[in-house]
């Protein structure tokens, strides 16, 4: 049988972005520090999910499922380590988000602010479903609602924030 490789990578017309060295770890550390810092001083900041925004941004931009899922895993495990949650809860959720974010980023153009807003809202809710499923069904922790009004508000808030954060991170791209 003839060996036939089918190309399933990024669409040829969609650009894969590269970043200056140190941008990705710096963004990850900054997101985790701010995520830990803001809610202590500002109550509204508990709506933010900066580590998810960073995971999603680099997944959508790099468009490589393997690196997307590995970055998601790293951010998730760090978030678990710094939280009181069992290690792996955020890890699994962000691994899956990183994988699917990269897969989608490789197929559609995600540079438009509206597309970024919608993708963030959808991935925020997807992340929530994964997190609740893992904690409820696998760890038998207290069952939480998948969706509620505060969750939907948080999804929209993060969607709006993503427009600004993503365009800020765009500035650290290497010129093509």
């Amino acid at each position: 049988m003839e060996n036939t490789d089918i190309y399933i990578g990024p669409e040829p017309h969609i650009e894969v972005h590269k970043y200056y060295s140190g941008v990705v770890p710096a963004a990850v550390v900054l997101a985790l520090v701010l995520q830990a810092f803001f809610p202590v001083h500002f109550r509204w900041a508990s709506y933010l999910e900066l580590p998810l925004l960073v995971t999603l941004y680099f997944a959508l931009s790099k468009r490589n499922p393997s690196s997307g899922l590995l970055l998601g895993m790293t951010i998730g495990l760090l978030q678990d380590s710094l939280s009181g949650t069992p290690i792996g809860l955020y890890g699994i959720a962000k691994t899956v988000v990183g994988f699917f974010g990269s897969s989608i980023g490789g197929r559609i153009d995600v540079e438009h602010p509206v597309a970024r807003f919608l993708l963030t809202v959808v991935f925020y809710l997807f992340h929530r479903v994964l997190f609740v499923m893992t904690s409820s069904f696998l760890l038998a922790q207290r069952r939480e609602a998948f969706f509620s009004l505060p969750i939907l508000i948080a999804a929209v808030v993060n969607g709006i924030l993503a427009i600004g954060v993503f365009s800020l991170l765009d500035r650290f791209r290497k010129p093509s």
Partner: protein
Amino acid sequence: MIAIPSRHKSLTLLAGVIVAQLLLLAVQIKRQGQVRLIRVWAVELMSPVQRASSWVFYNLGHGWGNYVSLRHTREDDQALHAELDRLKVRNAELEGRALEADRLATLLKFRDAHTDVPMAAARVIGGSPDSGSQIVYIDRGSRDGLKRDMGVITPDGVVGKLFAVYPDTSQVLLMGDKESGVGAMLAGTRTQGVVKGTSKPELLMDYVSNDTKVSVGEEIYSSGQDRIYPKDLPVGTVAEITTDRRSPFMQIMVKPSAHLDRLEEVLVLLTRQDLEMKKESEASPAAEQASPVPVKAAESAH
């Protein structure tokens, strides 16, 4: 040889990574603990950054409050108000310092009133990246003699307990976390129950039977039964009472005594020795006013 398409490689990697994390979760559940090494690495990596950012934000906040936000006022009438602005800046700076000094003085006074109970003052340097849990980081760790499950308080009341202790930092599980629980009792009837976190501003006191006489505004104190918090520390006040015919217990919503949403400095109890709370009332008339129910002298030290 058949080449594996790149998508299959990613899917295989995804499956492998998820299975590895599921195993990690399973190990933690089986051991009823945490994978401590990973946490130690992560916390040791992040805590210097957290300290630095806490310092930067603290000073930026002061800079903003003392200079930048007043710039517009100065521009309005710089010539006429230059002196006034200078005084405003100075005043704001002094007020900020006075507030901090007040907080520290209250903390010091409380500690001085309980010199027989060893405790360590600590500053809150960060929170949890998980918005669902109520955890804060403090700038003291095992090098300062802190250990897991030590009680954390402020002069206002119970704050939480040490959840994890690292060399220079510790995680405090706040009383408001849904996984948190405090052995408590009603001041009036001395009826015991458990105050649990709800991840909301209010707490929930459970296991108080429906026939107990409880009134809104009644004080709630720690019972000492949980072997973490000493007896008779203020926990909160009754905010709302609901009864359900199907349950033998009433649900009591509790307003916490300590300001869990704006903690800046806390005290860690280095032993489980009971505190003589009366001393605090004598030391601080304001505290006595805030706590109209006299707190019975606690039992002697263990």
